[in-house]
């Protein structure tokens, strides 16, 4: 494979279990033997051991030193590099503040929650001012709320520090949300690299398409802030409300599994509720039905479980109401 990550960029490395994501990180870090070349800023690091590559690595299970408290865990790399005590103290305090874990300074890893351990692991990796930051599914064992929150924090910190980062995940939504670019790795081979909207709208082959799941990527001609982190975008005349932290939205992606059909007009708020016409129904597998539906000038692809499809009685040409789940719609600047 041939993979380039631009300076200061966050690359989301996406792939199923066993694809080789961790192995790739280990190669970059220099903790496994490999054939090939790894270059940092054009300079080969192949002859450098892991301790000299200047890589910050957050392992999948975090690998915090259980016999050291939080402050000593963070200070470990600085002590290994023989920094002065005052320098170490200053850097540790800075990172404790950055990660908002000052109150955990003297606690041991076994006394921390999953989210707290993750922050400590990240602080430890950042303490050595790495040239490259490697994050191996660091949010794996956290509940979805904490995961979303920490994901946003990691992104903020990475942007602030402008450190080149590779973030490994098997979660498509996470890859799309966090990465400047997404690289898809399947069976040890790099299948596609590009901006999230590009990869999700144009998967290069069936295996990539299966991995990322069907996505409806729509171009937005306008974007209007309506308050509270919500925006109304115009996609070929169809107004869709989305949630976004930034202020510019050029594209949105609607997962096929997050389009909900109703035979009659659904009760409740009219937000993201539309009337459409069914164009085509296909069944690629015994348990899944794909439905192409026209909404205004847009054609959307929806995926339903077979039993749900049967209960709705959808047929070609039928008019139907559908709702788009606001929280599932991804936005791209």
């Amino acid at each position: 494979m041939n993979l380039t990550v631009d300076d200061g960029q966050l690359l989301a490395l996406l792939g199923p279990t066993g694809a080789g994501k961790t192995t790739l990180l280990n190669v970059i870090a220099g903790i496994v033997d490999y054939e090939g070349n790894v270059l940092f800023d054009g300079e080969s690091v192949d002859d450098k051991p892991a301790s000299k590559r200047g890589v910050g690595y957050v392992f999948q299970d975090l690998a915090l030193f259980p016999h050291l408290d939080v402050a000593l865990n963070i200070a470990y790399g600085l002590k290994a590099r023989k920094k002065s005590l005052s320098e170490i103290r200053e850097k540790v305090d800075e990172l404790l503040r950055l990660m908002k874990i000052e109150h955990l300074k003297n606690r041991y890893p076994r006394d921390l929650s999953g989210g707290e351990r993750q922050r400590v692991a990240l602080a430890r990796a950042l303490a050595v001012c790495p040239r490259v930051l490697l994050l191996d599914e660091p949010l794996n064992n956290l509940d979805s709320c904490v995961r979303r929150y920490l994901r946003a924090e990691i992104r903020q910190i990475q942007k602030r520090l402008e450190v080149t980062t590779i973030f490994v995940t098997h979660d498509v939504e996470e890859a799309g949300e966090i990465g400047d670019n997404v690289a898809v790795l399947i069976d040890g081979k790099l299948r596609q690299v590009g901006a999230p909207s590009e990869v999700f709208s144009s998967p290069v082959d069936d295996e990539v398409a299966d991995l990322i799941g069907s996505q409806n990527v729509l171009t937005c001609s306008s974007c209007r802030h309506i308050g509270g982190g919500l925006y109304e975008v115009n996609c070929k005349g169809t107004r869709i409300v989305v949630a976004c932290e930034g202020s510019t939205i050029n594209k949105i992606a609607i997962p096929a599994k997050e389009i909900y059909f109703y035979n009659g007009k659904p009760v409740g708020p009219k937000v993201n509720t539309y009337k459409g016409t069914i164009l085509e129904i296909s069944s690629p597998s015994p348990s899944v039905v794909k439905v192409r539906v026209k909404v205004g000038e847009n054609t959307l692809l929806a995926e339903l479980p077979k039993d749900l499809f049967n209960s709705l009685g959808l047929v070609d040409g039928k008019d139907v109401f559908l709702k788009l789940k606001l929280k599932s719609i991804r936005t791209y600047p």
Partner: protein
Amino acid sequence: MEIFRHLRGTIPFAVFVALWEIVARFNLFPGRFFLPPFTVIVQELFYMTASGVLLNHLLRSLIRVLIGFLIGSALGMAVGILMGCNKVMYEALNPIVSFLYPIPAMGWLPLLMLWIGIGEALPITIIFICSFFPVAYATAAGIKSVDKKLIKAAETLGASPRKILTSVVLPLALPTIFTGLRLEAGMAWRVIIAAEMIAIPTGIGALFMQAESLIRTDMIIVCLVVLAVMSFSFEKVFQYLELKLCRWAKHFDES
């Protein structure tokens, strides 16, 4: 509530002592010679201590145990570190250690009596053997049990192999090493008594044999009490050190 906890341990012991006194005093135990009352034991303990007999023999046993245990443990740890950190050394030494480890320390006594004779070197060597193999084993096992991910993490953070050994591997192996040390500290006392009973004219073991030949059950029981206290104290010392140095380990959660 604290007082009830202490009473829970003290009351049964007090009842046991009271029963002992009563049974011995009223000849309820078959063969009166062989169970002196508790108060007679206490008297004999004071007498042996005041006369210097107990201290003299105890010191000899203590010095032998200390020398044999310290040298055996130190060398055991050194070999254990070598085996734990180096695959080639492990494969080379493990068969020898595994073969010799199960042999009881007292099993070496006849051979050592022929090779080095009866003198101070004999009990010290027995204690050395008693300590060396289990500590080497525990050290190697402790080092091998350290999560490899932690070593890789230390590597990526810029630590040299020596730094990784001293700051990550050894500290994390300590709980297992201490388990070995704690068990062998108590075992060393049991072994020295046996060696002194069979082959050495001085020490607590020799005192046992003298008491036996004089049919002095009171002296024998005093020696048993001293043995129990020394064995218990040694284990407690290592337990204390383990508590201080391995506070982070899971099994100290309750404390």
